[in-house]
């Protein structure tokens, strides 16, 4: 997966390995609020981050399926707002635990990086 840079405004460039794990974290977080399907999830992500985080169409699904295989999210088919059947994902208890763990890691990492960047030049 890669974060698309279709809209150059405010796009982030990140090293690839950071990206993969981060996407999982983002997905898990989005699903804490309510069960979502893949489309809504990607739209929501864009909206919440002010267009910064954009996922190219379809590339979210492998991540979703992987998370499902790991038992962190579970899926069921239900009717969407247009009365069409769609696959909705929701968080499992294990997913919640993973989210907490990964969030903590993220904060730790982010603050460490921020700290280094803010170092004054000697």
């Amino acid at each position, binding site marked *: 997966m890669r974060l698309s840079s279709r809209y150059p405004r405010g796009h982030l460039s990140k090293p690839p390995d950071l990206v993969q794990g981060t996407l999982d974290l983002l997905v898990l977080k989005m699903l804490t609020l309510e069960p979502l399907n*893949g489309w809504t999830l990607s739209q929501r992500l864009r909206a919440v981050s002010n267009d910064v985080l954009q996922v190219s*169409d*379809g*590339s979210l699904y492998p991540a979703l399926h992987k998370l499902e295989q790991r038992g962190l999210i579970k899926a069921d*088919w239900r009717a969407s707002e247009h009365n069409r*059947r769609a696959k909705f994902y929701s968080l499992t*208890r294990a997913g919640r635990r993973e989210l907490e763990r990964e969030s903590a890691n993220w904060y730790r990492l982010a603050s460490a990086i921020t700290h280094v960047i803010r170092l004054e030049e000697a």
Partner: protein
Amino acid sequence: MAVGRWLDVLRLRLRSLFLFRKVDAELDDEFSYHLDRLTEQHIARGLAPAVALNQAIAAMNGVLRYKEQCRDARGMHFIDDFRQDLRYAFRQIRKNPGLSAVIVVVLALATGGNTAIFSVARAALAPLAIPAADRTVMVWSENPARNWHQFPASMPDVRDWSASGIFASLAPFLTDGFNVRLPDRTERVEGVRATPDLFAVLAIPAARGRLLGAGDGQQAIVISDRLWRATFRSDPGVVGRSVPVDGVPRTIVGILPPTFPRFGREDIYAPLAPAALESGRGSRNFSVIGRLREGVSFEAAQHRMAEVSETLAKTYPGDDSGIGAVLQPVQDAYVQDASLLLDLLIATLACSLIVASANIASLLLARGVGRRRELAIRTALGGGRWRLTRQLITEHLLLAVVAGVFAVIPAWAGVRFIASYRLTELPNVDGANLNVSALAFNFLVASGAGLLCGIAPVWFAWRNDVNSALKASGTINPRSHQRLRKLFVVGQVAVTAILVIAGGVVLRSFIELVRQQPGYDASRVLTTRIALDPTQYPSPDRQAAFYSQLVGRVSRLPAVTAASVTRELPTSDDLHGGGLFLAGAPEVRAENVPIVLNTSVDPGYFRAMQIPLAEGRWFTAHDTKDGRLVVIVDRWTARKYWPNQTALGQRIKLGRTQPWLEIVGIVGDVEAPVLVRFLKGRIGQVYRPLAQDPYPAMSLVLRTNIDEAALIPAVRSSVRDLDPDQPIFQTETLSEARVAGRRVFGLVLSLLNGVACMALLLAAVGLYGTLAYDVRQRTPEFGLRISLGAEPMHLLTLVLRRGLLLVGTGVALGLLGAAVGIRLVSNALYGVRTSDPATLMVAVGLVGAAGAVATYVPARRATRISPVTALRSL
């Protein structure tokens, strides 16, 4: 909790596995939902629906890859791929039904045959059910100077050995026959006479009752499980019952378990007679089995026995000088007789394996080359190497599985077939069952071989780069391939030639054997054996008297045209031989004394057997024990030892200390049993009159003009009238007796010729396959040649020449191999001709003909190539 999580995951995986179609459909639905929403979004932004859709599709570029990734995430793609591989495999097999069928049949036969031989060998070599069998040994006397090998021992020697301290228990024993009187009949039972120590050595408790004990005296006997079931009908009240054995009542004190090891066909175990126990140091009659003491190693025991023997030799120089004692692990002793036969079986197995593998290898190799192009194309289209290899593996594995399933049939049939020969040389063969682990093992080996042969050519193909394979348009056969395939074919033809020649030689010997005149008339002769119990008939006179009376009685039976007795039938395996000493000849050293077979007969024997008299006279009633000692010899003996004069009136003796006998008659030669003929070559036969050389056990011979079996009851009652304690046994016609001696030969013959036929077939198929593929590969080339003006005949000869060259090379190699083999065999056995041009020619002709036919068909096809279609494939 963790459990719940794993359960969910498990459910997911199972769903992917079993409801894969549904899961796949769901995946598609998920993506199409996304596409719909994207399209809607574009429409909402003002694009026309068609344009919106196109934009959406463009945006979802890479959806296939994402779908694959989703599937990968499910981790079940192996199953999917496997199913796909299976479908592909089936398709391939259906495309080449002939080839696939041949491979399956060959694999099944090879696997099945090997399993059969394996199972039989395993049953034969199954460890004896003796606790700590490796501590149980046979103890033999040896005297290398006199060629005494695995010789029996004498009682005093056994006692001294026992005192050596290395044995926990040591038991001498004899095999013997027992006449057991049952309520309705008397039966002859084989058995063993031993001291109670025998049971201490074997350390197996009785199943019922008890074993022989030290205080039992002569009264007690122990019977085998088999005898208990068959004769006493598993009656538990048998223990403690008194049964007349050899005319004396004995008490059955115990019954042995069914797993008690047998060394022959013994069913009764009785104590040694006092006379035997007191026999002298020079009377070597006893086999000895012992159990080593704990802590004594085999080598240490052997060493100690050598010391003991030395001491004995010094102490008793007259009897024991030069005598050593040798230990043999009982397991080895048990399978000794079987080893030759097992070696033969295994050699057959090896040959058939070679033939089958070479065949399959060459077939698959040819096919693999043909698919090089296909594989190159698929690689160019993006097929991963591993994926394609997996497909090939699946395909060949499928063939192997099918073959493995079918292999059960020849395996089971093979075991039954070998068991049906009821060879005594192969212990436990009745109990030989299809050994499942052998089947599994063989299946694995066969699958492995099949896989290797299937994958190998493809691997070779890939090493060259894909480009050249594509460009090659299928006409190029890399040199290494050609050589390899030619090698396979030549090798196959060579092995086939060897097998066919060997089969032919054995067949020829067998036919000669069967057609040979036995020297007597075997038709309409009934034989039966009688063994007088020495305790009831202690004196030779009484024994001779019994048999004279018996012959007189049965001669008077209606439908009996002649009756007689002989110590051993000419078909017996138990022939007795002795050294031949000629009167007036110079002293000969012990190892150069010639051997003759000798037997003791009633005067009417030659007439009863229709053996012609060449010179002199028959025995008469005047040849009594008080008269002159006479002997009759056969023509071969007479000619060999008295080549320039008549043998009549000459004198011989049958042992250094034996009395001189005068030759009064010369009779026609009589054939000796198969084993004697092959192992010892031609030996002479001499006859002595019953009155002068009686024996307690004799064979009764009756010539009749009706069906022999009808006489049996009359014979039985005649014997019973004379003495109800004496049973008759081994009742068969003389023709049956002759055939029985050929059983081992028959088995070897069937096996060898069976394998030879299969090899011939396979070689032909292999040759055909190779050449057919060759022609197919060269089709464009041939088409080109034809279009350039070549004669079809020319092409025919081209292909023919190539094929016949292969066949010729193979046959030449085979001839070489066969010549060496025959030389080796004829050194070991007599009666095998070293040069047999007729058989060789027939065998070579057969192989050559098969090769020619196999070559001709594809060659013909070469001539029918239409240049137009051939050139199109360029």
